[in-house]
C-alpha cells in the first residue's frame, strides 16, 4: 500500500495552494501559450489578484479551480486535433505528396462555440447583460480596414457588418432606442431590451487607424466569441418578433449594397415567402466584397407603414414611436447617413437620401425636414426646414420636437448635452438644459390642461419636482416662498383677530410685532429645530456603519455643492469678462 505523500514543494493550503502562475497553468494543461490565451478568453477565465503572491509580483496568477475547470473542456481536444492536422499537412507538403495534402485540406477539423455560450450565459438575460462589450466590438470591427498583416479577413468584417445591421434593424423596428450621444470617440447609443439597458459605442464614419500597441490576435479571439454571441442573440430577438433568421434580403438592394434598407424590407415583408436559396448569401457576399468602400445603408421606410403592433409595448416605446410620426426627412450627402437612418426610423420617422435605391427623391413634396451640414444652403423648397444633424439627436434626448430656429443652416449650434448625465444628481444644470426643460414643460402643458400658471409653481412644486420640470433648488425656493406666504397669512389673520378684539392692537404694536417676529422666528427656528432634532434622532439610532456612510454622503454632497459654486462663479466671471470685452 503506497504511502500517500505530498511531493516536495507542493503546498497544502493557503494562497500558495490556491493560486498558480500562468506558466504553471500552461504546463499543467499541456498546451501552448496562444492556445491557453484563446481558451481563457472563450471560457471567461480571468487572472486574479491574490493577497500573497508566492512566486513574485511580476507573475500573473490564476485560481487553481479555474484551471481545473479549463482542463475538462472539450475544446482542448479540438485544438490539439487542429494542431496535429496542421502538422500532417505541413509534412505532406514538404514531402511533395500533393494528393495527400489536397485530401487533407478537404477534411479540416472545425469547432463551434455554441456550447460555450450556453454555458456562460444559461439564461437569455445573462447574455443581454454582457451585450455592451459585444456590440461595441462588433461595430468597431465592422468599420475597420481588412489588413492582411494582422490577419483580419474581409469576410469577417462583412459578417460583423451584417450582424450590426441586423441588430440596428431590430432596435429601430421595435422602437427600443432611448438615448444617443455624439462624442469625440464616436456615437453612444442606449436601448432597453427586455428591461435591460444596453449601451454601445459606434465609431464615426472615419477611416479607422490600427494603432501598434494593440494585440490584434486577442481582439480577433474576442471578436470570434462575440460574433457567435450576437448571432444567437439576434436569432432569439428575431424569433420573438416572428421573423426568420438569418434574414433573406432583396437581391436588387443587395446589388446596390443598401444593406439596412434591404434588411428592413425583409423585416417588413415577413408574411411574404421569399424563395430563398443558398446562392443568395453567396451573391450578397460577392457583391458586398466588390463594393466595400461604398456601402450605403438603406432606409427603414416601409417599416412604418406596415407596423405590426406588439401588445406588450410599454409606455416608453409608444412615446418613442410617436416622436417623429408622420414626419418625413431627407438627408444630404454630407451628413452621417447610417446613424441618422437608424435614429430617425427608431423614433417613427420616414427617411430618404440621395443615391440609388432610395425610397423617394429630394424633390418630393412631403418632406418636412432636410438635414444638411453645409455652411450655406440655398432654400430651394420653402415648405421644409433645413436643419443640422444635431437637431435630430437633441430631439431624441429631449423626447420632444425642439424648435428648429437655433439649428438652422449656418447658425452656431447650442451645446450638445449628454443624456447619460443626471443633472439633478450633479446639482449643476447647464443653461441649455434648462431651456429644454421649459420646452418640455410647455409641451406637457399643452397635453394636460392646467387651471392656472403661477399657482402651479407654489402648490404643485413637489409634483413638478417629481416630474423633473423644475429642479431641486427651485423647489426649495418655492417651498420657502410658500412658507413665507403662510406666515404672512397667519399674521394677517392674527391682526384681524386683534382688530376684532379691540384696541389692544395699537397699544402694543412693538411687542406684538416683536412677538410676531418672534413667533415667526420661533416658527422658523422651531421648524429648523425640528429638522435638526429629527436628524439627531436618526443619527443616534443608526449603527456606526450607517452613521459613517451618512457622514460620507454628507461630505460628498458638500463637495458637489462646492463644485457647483465654483462653476457658477466661473460662469459669472465669463459673463463679466464678456461684458467688459464688449464694452
Amino acid at each position, binding site marked *: 500500500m503506497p504511502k500517500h505523500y505530498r511531493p516536495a514543494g507542493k503546498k497544502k493550503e493557503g494562497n500558495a495552494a490556491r493560486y498558480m502562475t500562468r506558466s504553471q497553468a500552461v504546463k499543467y494543461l499541456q498546451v501552448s501559450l496562444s492556445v491557453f490565451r484563446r481558451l481563457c478568453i472563450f471560457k471567461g477565465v480571468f487572472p486574479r489578484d491574490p493577497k500573497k503572491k508566492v512566486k513574485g509580483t511580476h507573475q500573473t496568477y490564476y485560481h487553481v479551480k479555474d484551471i481545473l475547470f479549463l482542463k475538462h473542456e472539450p475544446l482542448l481536444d479540438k485544438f490539439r486535433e487542429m494542431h496535429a492536422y496542421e502538422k500532417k499537412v505541413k509534412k505532406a507538403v514538404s514531402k511533395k505528396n500533393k494528393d495527400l495534402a489536397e485530401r487533407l485540406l478537404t477534411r479540416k477539423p472545425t469547432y463551434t462555440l455554441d456550447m460555450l455560450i450556453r454555458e456562460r450565459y444559461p439564461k437569455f438575460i445573462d447574455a443581454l447583460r454582457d451585450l455592451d462589450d459585444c456590440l461595441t466590438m462588433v461595430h468597431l470591427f465592422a468599420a475597420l480596414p481588412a489588413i492582411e498583416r494582422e490577419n483580419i479577413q474581409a469576410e469577417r468584417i462583412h459578417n460583423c457588418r451584417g450582424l450590426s445591421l441586423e441588430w440596428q434593424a431590430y432596435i429601430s423596428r421595435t422602437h427600443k432606442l432611448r438615448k444617443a450621444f455624439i462624442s*469625440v470617440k464616436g456615437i*453612444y447609443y442606449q436601448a432597453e431590451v427586455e428591461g435591460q439597458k444596453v449601451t*454601445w459605442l459606434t465609431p464615426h464614419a472615419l477611416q479607422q487607424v*490600427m494603432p501598434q500597441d494593440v494585440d490584434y490576435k486577442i481582439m480577433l479571439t474576442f471578436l470570434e466569441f462575440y460574433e457567435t454571441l450576437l448571432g444567437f442573440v439576434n436569432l432569439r430577438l428575431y424569433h420573438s418578433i416572428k421573423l426568420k433568421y438569418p434574414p433573406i434580403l432583396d437581391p436588387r438592394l443587395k446589388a446596390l449594397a443598401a444593406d439596412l434598407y434591404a434588411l428592413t424590407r425583409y423585416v417588413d415583408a415577413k408574411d411574404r415567402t421569399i424563395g430563398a436559396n443558398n446562392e443568395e448569401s453567396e451573391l450578397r457576399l460577392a457583391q458586398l466584397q466588390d463594393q466595400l468602400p461604398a456601402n450605403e445603408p438603406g432606409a427603414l421606410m416601409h417599416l412604418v407603414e406596415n407596423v405590426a403592433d406588439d401588445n406588450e409595448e410599454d409606455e416608453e416605446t409608444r412615446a418613442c414611436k410617436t416622436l417623429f410620426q408622420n414626419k418625413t426627412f431627407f438627408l444630404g450627402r454630407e451628413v452621417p447617413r447610417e446613424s441618422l437612418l437608424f435614429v430617425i426610423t427608431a423614433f417613427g420617422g420616414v427617411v430618404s437620401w440621395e443615391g440609388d435605391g432610395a425610397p423617394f427623391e429630394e424633390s418630393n413634396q412631403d418632406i418636412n425636414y432636410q438635414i444638411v451640414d453645409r455652411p450655406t444652403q440655398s432654400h430651394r423648397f420653402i415648405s421644409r426646414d433645413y436643419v443640422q444633424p444635431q437637431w435630430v439627436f437633441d430631439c431624441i434626448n429631449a423626447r420632444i420636437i425642439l424648435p428648429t430656429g437655433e439649428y438652422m443652416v449656418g447658425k*452656431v449650434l447650442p451645446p450638445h448635452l449628454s443624456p447619460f448625465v443626471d443633472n439633478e444628481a450633479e446639482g449643476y444644470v447647464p443653461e441649455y438644459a434648462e431651456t429644454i426643460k421649459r420646452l418640455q414643460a410647455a409641451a406637457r402643458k399643452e397635453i394636460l390642461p392646467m387651471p392656472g400658471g403661477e399657482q402651479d409653481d407654489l402648490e404643485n412644486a413637489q409634483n413638478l419636482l417629481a416630474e423633473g420640470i423644475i429642479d431641486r433648488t427651485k423647489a426649495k425656493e418655492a417651498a420657502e416662498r410658500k412658507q413665507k406666504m403662510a406666515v404672512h397669512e397667519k399674521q394677517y389673520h392674527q391682526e384681524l383677530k386683534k382688530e376684532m378684539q379691540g384696541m389692544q392692537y395699537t397699544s402694543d404694536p412693538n411687542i406684538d410685532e416683536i412677538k410676531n417676529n418672534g413667533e415667526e422666528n420661533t416658527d422658523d427656528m422651531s421648524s429648523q429645530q425640528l429638522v435638526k432634532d429629527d436628524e439627531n434622532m436618526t443619527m443616534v439610532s443608526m449603527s456606526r456603519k450607517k452613521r459613517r456612510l451618512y457622514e460620507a454622503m454628507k461630505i460628498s454632497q458638500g463637495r458637489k455643492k462646492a463644485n457647483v459654486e465654483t462653476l457658477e462663479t466661473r460662469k459669472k466671471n465669463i459673463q463679466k469678462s464678456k461684458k467688459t470685452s464688449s464694452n
Partner: protein
Amino acid sequence: MGREREVVSRRIREHSTNKILTRSVLLGFRSVFSAATPDSICYTAMGKSKSSRKGKKAWRTNISTQDIDDFYEKSSKDALSGGSLTEVPSDSLFFVDKSRDLSVKRKIDKCREKVLRVDSILQKNSFVQAIPSSTTKKSKQRQKEIQRAPSSSQVRKDGTMDTGMVDIWNDEGANAVKKRKVSNKAILIPAVEVEPPGCSYNPSSESHQDSLAHAVADEMQKVYTKELRPTPVPLTVVGEVVDVEDMYFLDADNESDGDVEDKEVDSNGDADLEKRPFKTKRVTRVELNRRARNKEKLKMEAETKKLKEFSKDLNSLPDIINEIAKEDEEKSKRHLRRVFAKQERLKSCPPRLGRHKFEPAPVQVLLSEEITGSLRKLKACCTLARDRYKSLEKRGILVPTAKSGRK
C-alpha cells in the same frame, strides 16, 4: 672583377634568409663591385665555413635578390605583352553571366527525390493484412459525431435549408449546465463607459473646461513625475584625454597601492610572529572569584530593576490601557481607510496583475480651437481599437504588457 661579381651574386642567392633589401644594402651591394675582395669569406674544399655572422661583409651574403629579380622579370614581361593587369579595367576581364539555360539543382532537392525506406515500407502492399485493433476512444467519438451529424442538418418543409442555428435558450432545462465552483468576482467597472459631457463633439463651455482640466492634470502629472524622478546613471561617461605623464602616475599609484597592501600584510604577520612567543596569562583563583561576585551583583541589580519597572507599570496602568485603546482605534481606522481606498481604487483601475502597470488612455477631449460645432468638420477619434483594448485591460480581463503601455 666580373668573376667577383658573379660570386657575390651567387652567394646572395644561396643565402636568402634575410629578404628585406634596404637602400643601404643596395648601396653596399654596389660598393661591393668596386671594393676589394673581402677577407672574411674564405672557401674551403668542404664548402662553406662557419664564419662569424658579424660584420658588414658577412651580412651581405645573406641578402637575397629574388624580389628584385622577380620585379625586373615581371616588368619586362608586362612591357613585352602590353601593359600590366592592374591597369586593365575590370570590365574587360570579367562579365556577369546572365544565361539561364543552366539548371541549378539544389542538393536538398536531389536528396528529396530519393524515396526513403520508411516511406517505401509504408506504401500499400497487398500481401500485408491489417491487424484488427480494439476500438480506441478517438474512433468511438468519431462514430458518435457521425451519428449526430445527419440528424442536425435537416431540410425544412419549404425547401429552405436550416442554417443550423437553433435558439439555444429555448429549451432551458434540457442540458443542466454545471455552475462554476469559484465564480468570477463581479467586475465593478462597466464594459462601455460613457464619457463625461465635456467630451461631446459640441460641448457646453463649463463641462468642456472640466474635461480639459482633467486632461491637463493627467499630462502635468506625467511631466512632473518625469522631472522629479532622480536622474538615471548614464551608461557611458565622456572621458578626458589622459597625458602620457599622468598615465605613468596612474600606473605608479596602482603599484604603490599593491605595495602598501603587501607591506601591511607583512607587518601584521610580523606582529603576530612577535606576539606568539608570549603565552596567554593564566587565570588565577582570585580572578575567578572576582568574576563570580560581579556576575551575582549584576544579576541582583537586574532583578531589582525589573521589579521597579513592574511596580512603575502597575502604577500607571490606566494610562497604559488608554494607550492600548488609542492604538487599537488608530489601527482600526487605518484599516478602514485602507479598505475604502482599495475599493475606490478598484472602481477606476484594475489590481496589479503582472509586471506592468495599467496605463489609462488619455481623455479624448477636443481642444478649444477644435470645437467647430459642425459634425462634418469634427476631428474624430480614429483609434477606437485602442479604446476597446484599454477597456479590457481596465476590467482585469487582459494583463497589461510592455507593448501596450508604450505609445
